[in-house]
């Protein structure tokens, strides 16, 4: 007779118990869109409206492992002393920490183009915001599906 907290062997084999495969512990709270909004406000300040555009995010549609997902960001900007990207912010709506990474650019960058690899805790939307030298904010977003490993690896 199974007790109320027992997990059936079948469910375990089928990987229904998600906490066994996620890189996070069960106690790490996943972020919410509200906490991302708070992080964005802290980083970007209030008052300046964010316009969608000029920021291109390249992320795979389907990430086969959330531990490492390649990210490329390009911003449409001449990168001159008069008109350039000063900051590029990347925010997550589901990761335990909403701030993912930030890049400080400038006219010496030549172009606004960076790449890195990020962690994704779950299927979610990633938002990138560029702060221009004139103070304006531009944003882009991409949705990524994050899949779980088929077999457990405890090595």
């Amino acid at each position, binding site marked *: 007779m199974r007790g109320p907290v027992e997990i059936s062997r079948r469910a375990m084999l089928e990987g229904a118990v998600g906490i066994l495969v996620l*890189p*996070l*512990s069960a106690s790490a709270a996943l972020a919410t869109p509200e906490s991302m909004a708070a992080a964005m406000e802290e980083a970007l300040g209030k008052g300046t409206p964010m316009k969608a555009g000029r920021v291109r995010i390249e992320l795979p549609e389907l990430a086969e492992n959330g531990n490492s997902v390649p990210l490329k960001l390009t911003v449409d900007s001449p990168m001159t002393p008069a008109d350039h990207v000063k900051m590029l912010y990347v925010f997550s709506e589901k990761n335990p920490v909403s701030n993912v990474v930030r*890049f400080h650019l400038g006219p*010496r*960058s030549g*172009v606004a183009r960076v790449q890195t*690899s*990020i962690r994704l805790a779950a299927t979610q939307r990633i938002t990138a915001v560029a702060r221009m030298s004139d103070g304006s904010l531009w944003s882009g977003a991409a949705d990524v599906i994050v899949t779980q490993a088929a077999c457990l690896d405890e090595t």
Partner: protein
Amino acid sequence: MPATRIVVPAKAKKGEIVEIKTIINHPQETGFRHDNVGRPIPRDIITRFTCTYAGEEVFRMDLFTGVAANPFVGFTTIATETGDLVFEWTDQHGAVTREQTRLTVT
């Protein structure tokens, strides 16, 4: 000191855009994982990466727990003059890893 790898051309023409790629061997431990007896593994991350070129900072990256292990970054800079490219990674404890390479600009 953690191992690092820097991929940058040794030479460039003045005005050319140079692609620089760096990677550092570091777990970028989030602090959200537990070991196999349930103890939390403490957070241990690189928090900042900078590149200075002939003494002037030309790129900076602020890293959080959401950057993948063995943090990798690709960025660009304009080849202005022959000079040293100095790369510094700083972790949350303030420890700095420093690497340097020379860029010859013709």
